[in-house]
């Protein structure tokens, strides 16, 4: 990672599933430019995709349509990713972690909710600010690892 790559990239995409690939490809390119290894770049892609999934799903719930804003801050030893939507918000504590995935019967497994689990596992930092009517901001940090 070097200071030559410091800067900020902002992307706005329609809150629709067909634009997810655009977000993933953009952050993958940024990760590559910053010198992250291929596994870390894949982690970044997955997590931005999951944050956008949440935004799209909640946008559709309130028929908000609208856009998702993705701000990528390229810092000295880390990439900070902020995914903001104007949807109805959600409670990040209502995550699948409340289910004991090691013991639950397959028949009782939820069909959704695995996204936040992935983000928490793959990112170094994760914060979610969500308020009814004020949208949701997901902030994630991926730090560089010494070669």
């Amino acid at each position, binding site marked *: 990672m070097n200071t030559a790559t410091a800067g900020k990239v902002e992307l706005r995409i329609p809150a629709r*599933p*067909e634009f*997810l*690939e655009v977000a*993933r490809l953009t952050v993958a390119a940024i990760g590559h430019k910053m010198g992250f290894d291929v596994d870390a770049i*894949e982690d970044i*892609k*997955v997590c931005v*995709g*999951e944050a956008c*999934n949440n935004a*799209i*799903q909640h946008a559709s719930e309130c028929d908000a349509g609208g856009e998702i804003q993705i701000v990528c801050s390229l810092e000295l030893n880390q990439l900070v990713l902020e995914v903001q939507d104007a949807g109805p918000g959600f409670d990040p504590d209502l995550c699948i972690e409340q289910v004991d*995935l*090691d013991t639950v019967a*397959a*028949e009782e*497994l*939820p*069909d*959704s*909710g*695995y*996204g936040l*689990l*992935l983000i928490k*596992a*793959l990112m170094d930092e994760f914060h979610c600010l969500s308020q009814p009517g004020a949208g949701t901001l997901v902030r994630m940090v991926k730090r560089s690892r010494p070669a």
Partner: protein
Amino acid sequence: MNFEINSRTVDDRTAVVAPVGEVDLHTAPEIKRRIAELSDQGYTQIVVDLSRINYLDSTGLGVLVGALKRLREKDGELRLVHPTPRVMRVLEITRLVNVFQIFDSEEAALSSLTGRGA
């Protein structure tokens, strides 16, 4: 995005579904529909070949979990074959690796299904 689903029937209860490309909120519903169609036609033993999936997100996981549950309601089963390392990582993080029966080859998966043992 280049995405397609190949599928074929093996016998009157068994089918193989082989998606190709990236599975996300945009494409996962297509897999869900294909498996539901096969299930409705009586193919309740489904093998999903993941060898050509290079990206699978939580919606893809949800489709696989949902398919497993609904097939079991019909006394059927779902098997996964040859997930790529990236897909395997997602299965491991979510601990769904303990839920699905995962095989290295289609032949092994088919042999594991009821009435198809060697």
